[in-house]
């Protein structure tokens, strides 16, 4: 740290006011936008608080699914600086794997089918877990294959070549899946491994009888919402533990910080990168299964928009940061749900991307991002 008193007077930092003239105009514009958004939200909250809360819950459901995908994006980008466009399609493959496992092979009932005396409740839990684990496994294998075949040869190529490759892989997965003998191009009603039940809150929690609507002015939620919530939070905690406490996590952080030096320290960089792809894709597969159960319809381009939103969420929270991805995903979920309810359904993507652009303009590293050091 140089001694400041020795510097000539001209080098003293210019007052902030003179450095950015007219900054108040832009800030005023943002404040007007924020006031407008706050007005819309608060007026609707006052008009009907229960519907507002319901929208918040729906947004949370979406946000927690986005969080599962965003984790993979943020880890992969943090380490190889590649927007892995194929990540959203891996999410789609996860959903389809579970669909075929359930509808073709009845994998969700295997304990009961093998052992007829097995208790039904436990059988559903074990069966569903098996389905989810299978989907995650398939996603991991797929992602590692993609990484080995498509991305690894391009690691030293210009970054744009890798980006185009990622787009190519994404297209390939989408349209190969759309072939008749693979997944078919249609929308497919999803067969859930377990029954979704919903409850409503009205001076206590009551179950909603299937086929009936919940009474007016009540908040309803379903078991899949709770599962998504728990899964997302558990994954977040697990990843925090993995990255902070374990050896492979330290290796991941070292690789993301400086690859050549990490290699000099005896870290197998290729293995770490593969591992990162595997972890991220595994949780994308989990997200795919939960998303399909929650929204009950799948097709081969299912992954594009959630993938994109999740990436936006990761950027919003600060790319490379795990809590950032989580918070960003929740913000995206709320933005989407509230825009759909109170502004305009088709414009939900516009609002999401506007938020991204504004956040990046105000804080270029995202909400939780660390300032980028000068790295080669």
């Amino acid at each position: 740290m140089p001694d400041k008193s020795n510097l000539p007077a001209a080098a003293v930092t210019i007052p902030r006011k003179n450095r950015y003239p007219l900054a108040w105009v832009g800030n005023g514009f943002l404040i007007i936008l924020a006031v407008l958004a706050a007005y819309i939200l608060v007026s609707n909250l006052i008009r009907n608080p229960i519907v507002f809360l319901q929208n918040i819950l729906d947004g949370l459901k979406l946000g927690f699914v986005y969080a599962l995908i965003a984790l993979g994006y943020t880890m992969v980008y943090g380490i190889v600086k590649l927007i892995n466009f194929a990540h959203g399609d891996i999410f789609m493959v996860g959903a389809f794997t579970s669909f075929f496992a359930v509808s073709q092979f009845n994998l969700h009932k295997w304990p009961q089918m093998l052992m007829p005396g097995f208790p039904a409740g436990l059988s559903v839990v074990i069966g569903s877990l098996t389905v989810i684990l299978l989907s995650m496994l398939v996603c991991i294998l797929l992602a590692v294959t993609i990484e080995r075949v498509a991305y690894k040869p391009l690691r030293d190529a210009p970054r744009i070549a890798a980006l185009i490759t990622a787009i190519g892989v994404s297209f390939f997965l989408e349209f190969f899946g759309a072939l008749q003998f693979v997944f078919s191009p249609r929308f497919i009603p999803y067969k859930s491994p377990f029954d979704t039940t919903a409850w409503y809150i009205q001076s206590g929690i009551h179950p909603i009888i299937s086929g009936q609507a919940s009474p007016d002015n009540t908040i309803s939620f379903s078991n899949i919402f709770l599962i998504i919530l728990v899964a997302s939070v558990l994954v977040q905690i697990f990843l925090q533990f993995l990255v902070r406490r374990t050896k492979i996590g330290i290796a991941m952080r070292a690789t993301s910080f400086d690859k050549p030096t990490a290699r000099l320290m005896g870290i197998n960089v290729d293995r770490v990168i593969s591992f990162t792809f595997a972890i991220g894709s595994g949780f994308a597969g989990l997200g795919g299964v939960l998303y399909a159960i929650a929204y009950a319809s799948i097709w081969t381009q299912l992954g594009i928009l959630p993938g994109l939103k999740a990436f936006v969420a990761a950027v919003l929270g600060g790319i490379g940061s795990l809590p950032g991805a989580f918070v960003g995903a929740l913000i995206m979920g709320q933005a989407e749900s509230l825009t759909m309810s109170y502004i305009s359904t088709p414009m939900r993507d516009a609002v999401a991307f506007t938020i991204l652009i504004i956040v990046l303009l105000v804080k270029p590293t995202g909400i939780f991002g660390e300032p980028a050091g000068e790295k080669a």
Partner: protein
Amino acid sequence: MELGYLFSTILKMAALIAWIYGLMWGLKHKLLWQKALTVILAFAVIQAAFLIQFGDFALFSAFDQGLLFQAVSMAMVALGLNLIYGFNGQFSLAQWSFYGIGAYCAADITYRWTNGDPSGLLVVGIGVILAAVALAGVGRLLRLKRGIPVLSAFTFYLVALVAAGLVAVVAGRAIAPALVPLFGTSAAPGVLGSAFVRQIVFFLSVLIAGAFAAEVSFMFGLPVLTLGSDYFGIATLGFAIVVQTLMVNSDTILPFPEMKGGRGMIGIPKMTSWVAAFIFLLVVVTIVRNFVRSSTGRAAMSVREDETAAKAMGIDIAGSKLLVFVVGSFVAGIGGGVYAHYIGFLSPATFSFLAGFNPLIIVVFGGLGSMTGSIAASFVWIFFLEGFLRVLLSQLGTDAPTWRFVLYPITLLLLMLIRPQGLLGSVEWGFLKPDAIIRRLKGGGPAAVDQKERA
């Protein structure tokens, strides 16, 4: 029959490439009459090819002629994208949206005009001119102070643009009723309804569409280009999605019932003749070529190579990126106008962000930073995809269109692995070659060279 068709398609692609080569070779000559002769010859060759027919066999069937128009508009889009991405290094996925914006804008103007409503031309025309003046004025004022944050600049531009737009709408609506009687009836068309005026309106509409797309790209690019390359790519992807959403809801969110939202806009007059398409292609090629070979273009290329070094050389990086982005979008808008008036039907599905990867793939195939590559790849791409693969894959039944999209990512992946700089790399032909200009500069300007050659 299939084999014969495939063979003839390959032949056509080769012939078109030879034609492009000949055109570029002819245009590189210094004298004006040589250039003019080249243009006329090149035009006549294609026209003659259209006419060749032996019984059932047509050298360029109606289908192939349609492909040619598509290829011309695709070449414009690809050239614009190559400017942005190949020469300036900004990864943009919004090019296809500017193409769509141009297409819808031009189509709306001529659609209204043919239905006896001049308000489209008046409002958009006045709006585009006023907006250009307003943006230039604000830009001039903002340059008085250094270091104005981009958000503040954006706010000023936005206010100016909204004001210009309001004035244009009011003025256009006020003037329009005065012109309506001049259209006459369909039985006895008045001055403005005549075929000649309609041709002029068509040309104007395409240019206005380009300018409109350029102004939209200016407003979008100003804040977004400061984000850095990857974030810029994502933001452009978002822009593409938003534009498509707006197109789907053009009759509900936007006040344009004639665009018919997701059902697609029908009844656009099919006014793109081969003359018009050819003229616009030449104009676009010339614009792009002269831009790239100017000092501004060289500055843009230096930004691609190394931003820090370019900054040290005194190049305004943000300004350079913005200018290139605007010029690229202008070119795309013109391409959109040409396309809309050839096809006569616009659907939002055409401008989906998935289709937006097509020009990107063309630019990558043709070679980043090769104008020749972009033009040639556009022609080859359209004929390959629509002519070749469609026939070849129709054997596969209902999956045929999907197989197309399965095969081209694979080609793309292979290309990226084997030859990341594109098929043609940075090769340029004739007119587009850089040394043609450098030679001229060394010889002491064009006049000196001409005299030397005459002597």
